[in-house]
């Protein structure tokens, strides 16, 4: 029972922190922390699946999150008929050519006998395939991007409900993870780390530069929401009346109501994923994964296919990250590829997992909440600290202004110190694995 009370007290602490934010700052920021905390907890669950349970070092979380985010565009934005007419099918044809080239290369490499003939043939296929792909796709991209570039200039999506984008985001991330896993798993763990770091940069570069797909750095705004808009609520007499009975201003009430709806949606996803993760962890499959993590050679000797299991868990964990990415973009209703920074979307998640307790699902969730809370609150705390430290200095002293302006960067420093202290003094995290 001791474990349970420890778990509960930590989660109670999180609740106190968030409720305290509500009382001392505002309920809107408290709900913001709660919502992003829920998403962070899901991300952290995904990484915990890979690192905590299987010992795989994935430092490309950002890429999977971004893919999940992009899926909200593909699913929920309305299609743009003019752009499709301008070059949609031709782009699809170009992509198919590119895929066919790669498939031909892979098949050719494995089927043809080794030797100079194979090298020359594969090189020829690569060059011809690349030229064909470029000549088909380039003009089509140009004409699609020329369609009303200020507002559109991309193909749009399918116009389906945005909630569908969450599982699809997971599927997209899983697909990317399959490709990475196929090439990089089975090598040393450091190589997987560098490979995932690379692929995440590439994914974000694609989302930033392929304007026909995601409008690139012009961003996609106004992604449909699964919850009502504040303005509609404020114009709804029934809602205004209900808010009045609670003694709330309709504007504040509507923003809170929308955030609470998001919180309920996110919490249900978290609970489902947490339940699934717990089931997986305590199943024979989970025991096998941990056995592989603790001693790969022994597991291999017992006849376990280590590489296949690694691939499986890598895909599952990445899919969870993709789902979280789609949820995050849904919450913002805006897709901003330049916002994807590795420190925030990859390494912060790592801090969450390590601080919470790798290998323990509840630990990962706890880490998600606590670290996210700190990430948000360290900034005002740093600012306050700097003001106190520099108060003896003159009001317009250059050093004082510099320190106060730089206080925002304190959060990186704090996270690093936090991570190192945890690793040193409590390497198993707040809620250690049993």
């Amino acid at each position, binding site marked *: 029972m001791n474990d349970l009370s420890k778990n509960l007290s930590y989660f109670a602490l999180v609740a106190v922190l968030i409720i305290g934010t509500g009382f001392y700052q505002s309920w809107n920021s408290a709900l913001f922390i709660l919502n992003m905390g829920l998403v962070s907890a899901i991300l952290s669950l995904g990484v915990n699946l890979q690192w905590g349970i299987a*010992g795989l*070092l994935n*430092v490309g979380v950002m890429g999977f999150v971004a893919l999940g985010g992009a899926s909200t565009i593909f699913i929920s934005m309305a299609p743009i008929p003019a752009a499709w007419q301008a070059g949609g099918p031709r782009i699809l044809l170009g992509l198919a050519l590119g895929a066919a080239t790669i498939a031909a290369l892979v098949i050719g490499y494995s089927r043809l006998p080794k030797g100079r003939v194979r090298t020359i043939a594969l090189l020829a296929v690569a060059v011809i395939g*690349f030229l064909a792909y470029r000549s088909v796709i*380039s003009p089509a991209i140009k004409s699609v991007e020329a369609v009303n570039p200020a507002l559109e200039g991309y193909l749009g999506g399918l116009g389906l409900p945005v909630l569908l984008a969450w599982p699809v985001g997971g599927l997209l991330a899983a697909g990317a993870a399959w490709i990475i896993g196929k*090439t*990089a798993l089975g*090598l*040393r*763990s*450091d*190589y997987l*780390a*560098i*490979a995932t*770091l*690379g*692929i995440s*940069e*590439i994914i974000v*570069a*694609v989302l*930033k*530069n392929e304007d026909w797909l995601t409008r690139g750095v012009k961003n996609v705004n106004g992604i449909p929401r699964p919850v009502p808009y504040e303005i509609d609520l404020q114009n709804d007499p029934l809602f205004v009346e209900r808010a009045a009975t609670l003694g709330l201003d309709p504007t504040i009430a509507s923003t809170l109501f929308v955030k609470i709806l998001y919180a309920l949606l996110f919490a249900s996803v978290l609970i489902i994923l947490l339940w699934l993760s717990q089931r997986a962890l305590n199943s024979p499959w989970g025991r096998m994964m941990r056995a592989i993590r603790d001693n790969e050679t022994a597991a291999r000797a017992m006849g376990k296919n280590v590489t296949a299991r690694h691939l499986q868990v890598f895909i599952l964990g990445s899919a969870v990250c993709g789902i979280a990415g789609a949820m995050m973009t849904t919450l913002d209703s805006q897709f901003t590829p330049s916002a994807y*920074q*590795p*420190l925030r979307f990859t*390494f912060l998640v*790592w*801090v969450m997992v*390590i601080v919470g307790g790798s290998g323990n699902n509840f630990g990962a969730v706890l880490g998600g909440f606590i670290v996210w809370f700190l990430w948000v609150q360290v900034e005002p705390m740093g600012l306050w600290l700097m003001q106190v430290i520099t108060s003896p200095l003159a009001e317009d002293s250059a050093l004082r202004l510099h320190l106060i*302006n*730089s206080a925002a*960067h*304190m*959060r*990186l*420093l*704090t*996270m*690093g*110190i936090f*991570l*190192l202290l945890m*690793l*040193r003094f409590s*390497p198993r995290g707040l809620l250690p694995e049993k």
Partner: protein
Amino acid sequence: MMIDFLNAIVALSNFVLIPAIAYGSQLALGALGVTLVYGVLRFSNFAHGDTMAFGTMTVILFTWWFQSMGISIHPLPTALLALPFGIAVTALLLLGTDRVVYRFYRKQKAQPVIYLIVSLGVMFILNGLVRFIIGPGDQRFADGERFIMKARDFKAMTGLKEGLAIKTSQSITLVTAIIVVIALFWFLNRTRTGKSMRAFSDNEDLALLSGINPERVVIYTWLIVAALATIAGTLYGLDKSFKPFTYFQLLLPIFAAAIVGGLGSPLGAIAGGFVIAFSEVMITYAWKKVLTYLMPDSLDPSGLVQLIATEYKFAISFVILVIVLLFRPTGLFRGKAL
């Protein structure tokens, strides 16, 4: 015909060869740092990019200080004068980090993966420190003569249509890189300490048995890594510009260079640096100009003949990395990996 050929060669050198040589030297110096940490301390140091950023930042601060006092070594950039001071500060930082952070895990004989995660923590701290002190924005600190040869002068001199420009920073990069590499190889191959480092890297147990003091080896390694990282970072900053986030992103090509060459092999790191730099520059270069000179008029290319947009240069280091990992996992020079 002959003139066209000369023009093509000049354009090629101006836009591809010279920039790639400079960039390759910078990557090689960075990759040498990564490879030394890997060889002696046996982990992939994810904080290396930010170590470079920290070193460059201290050099920039010293440069500003010297400039404010009116000290300069015109026509060379003041940063060269500030370099030794920057290296000293960075060395103190790395030795401090080792004492406070890494030594504990060395005593525990922790797994390389744990080291890697610890280095992520160090990365966060350095990242925060650099942004805290100098800010996240772009800093230009190159002063002195910008060009050794200007494109216009070259055209006037030779009468060719294409100009050849050589930036001071590019030639400084090459000269410094050659000096550093010679000094490093002399140190590793000729001095007692260097030999003990190599012995330690080859076989730790044997090295310990023959009385090599591991802590001494580690201290020397960090000193060398500090020098390499600061020099690489400063040269990159002089050549392009200093921005903390760019330095973090350099991690990928640097690791790719070290792995392509063979992790733990200094010679490999240099080769890897040039392989990555040349592929990156050549694949993202728009070949139209060079081809127009070389092809008969009727075959002039209509597009830019750029294989891949510059934004995707990370993809190139990555693809080379994957190809090497798949077909020759120990790298070109048989590093110790796998």
